[in-house]
């Protein structure tokens, strides 16, 4: 895990510069994401009309997010009617304390956890370990990252940056297993450890992909079956879910499950889609005896209070925006230093953790818009990066930069002055080779890696003026000739 010894902005620069120079890793990530794109395009094409599906999904999430109070309470009343417990956590501390207190009261010894980004968000594993509880991540990618002592690289594909031999070496070092190049063997190694963990655990912790208000259920989507075992085997279950995950009706999942699978991994449907409505009911043979759902706010209501960016709460955490983002592809997930990487992370992190500390992520974008184009629920992601930049400049302008833009605006409002200034461009071009690449070079951050164009002697203005004059000349001589005839 990236330790933030430096302020987030400096750490980001350091990490991004390092990873952007790692050609091999970038190529591997690009290849993996290219395969994803092909699969996504293929399954996306099987929707009758992907555009309409997006509009429908966006409308449903808009309805849900704008009536969170109603739908979350509807969920709560139905879920608790079946014996489930619901805890509303305002912040990460409340959520952590609830889980730790529960584990202590129930004399929990071992915990197994299926993939939950909310867990990463509230630093749950660390808190549990500090309290003396053993926690094992059961999603294969998350398990690998846990063994490695690293945060997930991508919130859907936690270890997508690792090569097979690196995973084999990790298992060899941490578990003492023989090195292998076979994905099946590597999976079997993890499976042997994990099967034991499910049986030993007396508490399971999961996230949740959707909260269904109408039926009082949570929906979990996964490809490995590990979430089913995490929920099904231990006697206590805790699901930690962000409040924005609610949808009004069960029928909404008929759209969202295939959409999440398509946008997230390029599958028609994810391998396992489970609905949970509470603890084991009388007469049932399996399932946890206690089922707790923690509804996590943790500053989501701050985002809710911002009408301009509220649609960021539509996010279903499919990760599609990361998969198409040229910044993500070139700097990787760890450089962001956030729980949620990529474009959507750059939008929401300033709301969750403070604009001043995290505004640089909104600046570190070419605003290409690939994220917005791909987002299945129609979040205006790249424009929100612009909004964050505007809000940051209004909240606390960077003095030097503000002065620069004031001077720029002064110049650009005065055409005569601007024309005079641009007269110096050819001279600048002529003299530039003398300082190019040196500390005196005014465009050094450009010329350190790229050539700067040469300014011709005659600008467009000059050439157009001559062109018009020449045309006038031709026209007048043409008229004279015509008159002679």
């Amino acid at each position: 895990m990236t330790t933030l010894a430096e302020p987030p902005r400096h750490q980001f620069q350091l990490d991004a510069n390092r990873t952007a120079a790692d050609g091999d890793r970038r190529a591997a990530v690009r290849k993996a994401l290219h395969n994803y794109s092909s699969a996504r395009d293929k399954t996306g094409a099987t929707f009758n009309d992907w555009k309409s599906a997006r509009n429908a999904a966006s409308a449903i999430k808009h309805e849900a997010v704008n009536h969170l109070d109603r739908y979350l309470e509807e969920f709560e009343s139905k879920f608790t009617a079946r014996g489930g417990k619901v805890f509303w956590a305002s912040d990460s501390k409340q959520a952590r304390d609830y889980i730790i207190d529960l584990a202590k009261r129930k004399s929990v010894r071992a915990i197994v956890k299926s993939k939950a980004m909310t867990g990463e968000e509230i630093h749950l594993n660390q808190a549990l370990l500090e309290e003396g509880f053993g926690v094992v991540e059961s999603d294969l990618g998350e398990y690998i990252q846990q063994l490695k002592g690293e945060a997930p690289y991508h919130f859907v594909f936690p270890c997508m940056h690792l090569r097979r031999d690196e995973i084999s070496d990790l298992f060899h070092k941490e578990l003492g297993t023989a090195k292998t190049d076979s994905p099946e063997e590597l999976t079997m190694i993890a499976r042997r450890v994990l099967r034991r963990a499910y049986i030993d655990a007396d508490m399971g912790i999961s996230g949740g992909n959707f909260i269904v208000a109408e039926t009082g259920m949570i929906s979990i989507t996964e490809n490995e079956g590990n979430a089913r075992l995490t929920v099904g085997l231990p006697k206590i279950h805790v699901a930690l879910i962000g409040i924005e995950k609610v949808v009004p009706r069960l029928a909404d999942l008929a759209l969202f499950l295939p959409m999440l699978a398509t946008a997230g991994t390029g599958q028609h449907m994810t391998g396992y889609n489970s609905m949970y409505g509470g603890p084991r009911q009388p007469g049932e043979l399996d399932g946890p005896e206690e089922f707790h759902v923690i509804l996590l706010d943790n500053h989501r209501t701050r985002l809710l209070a911002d009408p301009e960016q509220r649609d960021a709460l539509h996010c279903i955490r499919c990760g599609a925006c990361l998969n198409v983002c040229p910044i993500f592809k070139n700097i990787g997930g760890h450089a962001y230093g956030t729980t949620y990487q990529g474009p959507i992370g750059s939008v929401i992190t300033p709301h969750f953790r403070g604009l001043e500390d995290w505004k640089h992520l909104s600046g570190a974008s070419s605003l290409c818009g690939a994220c917005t184009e791909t987002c299945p629920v129609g979040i205006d992601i790249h424009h929100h990066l612009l909004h964050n930049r505007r809000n940051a400049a209004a909240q606390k302008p960077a003095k030097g930069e503000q002065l620069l833009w004031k001077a720029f605006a002064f110049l650009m409002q005065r055409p005569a002055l601007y024309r005079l200034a641009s007269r110096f461009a050819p001279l600048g071009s002529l003299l530039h080779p003398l300082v190019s690449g040196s500390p005196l070079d005014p465009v050094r951050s450009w010329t350190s890696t790229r050539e700067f164009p040469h300014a011709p002697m005659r600008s467009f203005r000059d050439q157009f003026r001559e062109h018009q004059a020449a045309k006038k000349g031709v026209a007048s001589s043409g008229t004279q000739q015509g008159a002679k005839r």
Partner: protein
Amino acid sequence: MPCRAIHISGTHPMRVTLFVPCFIDSLYPNVGMSMVRVLEHLGHSVEFPEEQTCCGQPPFNSGYWDEARAVASKQLDVFKNAEIILSGSGSCGAMFKVFYPELFHGHDREAEAKALSAKTWEFSEFLVNKLGVKDVGARFDGKATFHDGCHGLRELGTKHAPRELLSHVKGLELVEMSEAETCCGFGGTFAVKYPQISTAMAEVKCNSICETKADFVISNDSSCLMQIGGWLDRNIGSVKCLHLAEVLASR
């Protein structure tokens, strides 16, 4: 013989007002002149208000919207009487067309910003979708690939028009690159604030260009070409950048 090319465009002669972004004015004048030649060849009159400066995108993208609005206000004055505004850069065109209405939202000049937006066209969109021109009578011998500038592609929705025009250029072989829609990494001030990330993106773009074995890379956005050309000239040297208008003006 006046109106010599009306039969090509099939439309009435129009008064077209050029918006030539500051960097095209100083660094790529031939792009602007090529637009002039193509439009005049089609029988339209071209004007260039000398008072124009910059669209205001640099401060806008940096978050300094008051300063951007001051610059943009100047352009609202300059282009007040234009009938059609044509931009040779998808990015600056997007600033006029998409971002001015947002920048002036709730301000005095909102209606003027919307009016300016409505009469602004990206060059290729104007030719194909306003004038209905597919063949401008150009000839250009060479193998080329096309780069979709992000602002043109995703803010203005320009994808088909430049390809339609290029498909009718005699002698031109157009090959698509796999990363045609991938950002080149320019992004305005991003390119100098985060040069390492920007350059990594340029490298991906340019490798994709080189894979096509094309001799030329064409785009409808000179800002992207500054980035692509900057990387190619430093690292490759043999592939040349051309603006769409320069190809269409070739005879």
